[in-house]
């Protein structure tokens, strides 16, 4: 049972537990090296994100290695309300490979089809690859496994629409802003009320290039804090109207019990017709912006409900793509598994080739000793002939043995080959 994944994710543990298990980027090389130094671990990769902490393992002795990994995770979490095992899952063999492929494809993510996980797994793999010497964490099998996983992630994203469309309220706001303004670089944003959702939306907008940010809140210190985070400017709540005419995007998320931006005041404060579009994202409940403002020319007003409709529609669309994604994953797991089981044949094939080559060399030396009159060129020709004959003779049996192993018939066929050619039982073909 060589493959296993040991870890936890957003389904098995709440955020306050997940963050205890999480490894910082600085901790990860040592944690991974420690795992590799455990008995029975051949290869390992550690994926640690806000939604999951998982060790992917290629094991020689699963029975002793897995408990050690569980202990390492429990040590990392420290002082948990319940035993660490309550939050952890262990998947083995086929299930472990399938789990990795699902993770990379975004099927196991909190937001179905999210794309960041692919980069996070790639980083984890690169980190594992960077360890060398005694701490070497990636060899032939994990190279193949993770390259296959990343390729599966790419296939799922290219061949399905699983990652299309905004999957959260802030990203829906960004998607809309992009459809109005094209690039958001250099756009001016105003945030009214510095709540969590408002801050998240602002973060997404700034990531997309919104460069000038004005933050206003009842609490100027809170506004200042948010403004500082995004290199913006905090203004007093009473002054936000002065900022409006120069603004492209407004995000409102106050806790006010009534509308903060009324149609009447909006018309008074913005008397001239809006020449360029104004995008208003009202994510407050109750709403901060009177809905009639959305009827004004060049104003695009979206409430939290509108954005959630978009997210829900996108989610449904993503869900409809699941069967296609599952099919790709199943096919690719099978393909990887065939390759892996095919490796069982490698020691036998190697022994067969070595044995045959030894015989070839022995016979060649004996024959050439009797043909001393031959020139060096002729001797070379005879040697080439013997090598070529041997290769041709062995090609079909080795291909058949490998194919049989890939098809899961390795025991019968390898036994037969060992019996016929008098070979020993070998292991560690993947090395």
């Amino acid at each position, binding site marked *: 049972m060589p493959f296993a994944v040991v870890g936890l994710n957003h389904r098995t543990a709440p955020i306050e537990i997940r963050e205890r298990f999480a490894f910082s980027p600085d901790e990860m090389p040592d944690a991974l090296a420690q795992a590799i130094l455990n008995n029975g671990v051949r290869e390992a990769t550690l994926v640690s994100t806000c939604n999951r902490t998982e060790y992917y393992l290629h094991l020689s002795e699963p029975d002793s290695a897995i408990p050690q990994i569980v202990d390492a995770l429990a040590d990392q979490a420290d002082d948990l309300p319940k035993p660490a095992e309550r939050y952890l899952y262990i998947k083995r063999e086929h299930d472990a490979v399938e789990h990795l492929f699902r993770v990379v494809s975004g099927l196991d993510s909190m937001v179905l089809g999210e794309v960041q996980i692919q980069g996070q797994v790639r980083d984890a793999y690169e980190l594992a690859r960077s360890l060398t010497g005694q701490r070497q964490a990636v060899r032939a099998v994990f190279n193949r496994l993770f390259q296959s996983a990343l390729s599966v992630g790419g296939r799922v994203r290219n061949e399905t629409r699983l990652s299309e469309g905004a999957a959260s309220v802030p990203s829906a706001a960004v998607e809309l802003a992009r*459809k*109005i*303004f*094209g690039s958001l670089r250099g756009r001016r944003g105003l945030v009214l009320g510095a709540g969590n959702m408002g801050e998240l939306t602002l973060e997404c907008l700034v990531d997309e290039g919104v460069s000038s940010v004005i933050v206003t809140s009842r609490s100027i210190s809170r506004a200042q804090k948010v403004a500082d985070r995004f290199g913006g400017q905090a203004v007093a709540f009473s002054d936000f109207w002065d900022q409006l005419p120069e603004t492209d995007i407004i995000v409102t998320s106050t806790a006010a019990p009534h509308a903060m931006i009324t149609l009447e005041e909006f018309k008074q404060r913005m008397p001239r*017709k809006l020449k*360029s579009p104004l995008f208003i994202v009202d994510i407050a409940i109750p709403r901060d912006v009177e809905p009639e403002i959305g009827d004004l*020319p*060049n104003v695009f007003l979206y409430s939290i409900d*509108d954005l959630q409709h978009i997210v829900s529609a996108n989610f449904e669309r993503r869900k409809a793509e699941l069967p296609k994604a599952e099919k790709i994953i199943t096919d690719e797991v099978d393909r990887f598994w065939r390759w892996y089981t095919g490796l069982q044949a490698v020691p036998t094939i190697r022994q067969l080739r070595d044995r045959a080559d030894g015989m070839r060399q022995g016979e060649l030396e004996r024959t050439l000793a009797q043909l001393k009159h031959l020139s060096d060129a002729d001797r070379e020709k005879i040697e080439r002939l013997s090598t070529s004959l041997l290769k041709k003779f062995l090609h079909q049996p080795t291909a058949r043995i490998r194919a049989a192993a890939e098809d899961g018939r390795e025991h019968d066929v390898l036994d037969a080959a060992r019996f016929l050619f008098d070979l020993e039982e070998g292991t560690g073909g993947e090395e």
Partner: protein
Amino acid sequence: MLVAVYAIAAAFYLAASVRYATRFARAQPGATAVGAVIVSAGLLAHLAASGLYWSQFGEPPLVGLGPSLASLALLVALAVAALGLSTSARSLGLILAPIAAAVLLIALVIGIEPTGSELEFRGRWLVLHIFLAFIGYVGWVVAAAAASMYLLQFRQLKHKQLGAVFEFFPPLETLDRLAEWALIIGFAALTLGIWLGWAWTIRFEGGFRWSDPKVVWAVLAWLAMLLALWARFSRSRTARQAALWNVAGFGVVFVAYLVAKLIVTEGQFFL
């Protein structure tokens, strides 16, 4: 042979149109480069056909309804291929590729061959005059396509109906800029083209040919473009209003063209 090569080009344009329409119908996010690549393949065939025409008849395919429509289609296809270089603008092929295909097919039905009539205004100045005028018309076709897409996208965003148009069409800002630049380039080219024709008639005929319907129509098109530009650069107009003026002006000129075609049946060597 000539007709076959033109037909190959038309087939490519049709194939590209199907490609654009399929992605749009599936509400996929924008067009990929594939549509533009197919149009570019058609463009190569179209250029080969134009070269064949030139070598066969000793003049470029600019005079006569069939040849001039074929050349107009070539310029529209060129615009689609050029827009294909920009990720955000290549969705315009949804409208422009079928236009290129339709115009070329009409030309094929009419017959792409010289009129056989002797022209007074000949030579490189005539070629330049027609070429500039065609760039002007194609500029306007592109501007009108971008403006109509702008109006549709605006409507979707305003009414929160985020379907195929929202997904496939470019952002409002991109469409607005495209319409603006296409209009500016088209207007500049048409102005030069008309000026060249005017200069020739003044020099050799002593006055403008106001009795010539194509001259009247060209001047009408020029005036309509001027109005569309005025609407675009007027301080009081929004981008949506500019788009409305653009589409309306184009519609008026197009209808005027159809009416002129119905009324005037003889003596027209160009469009």
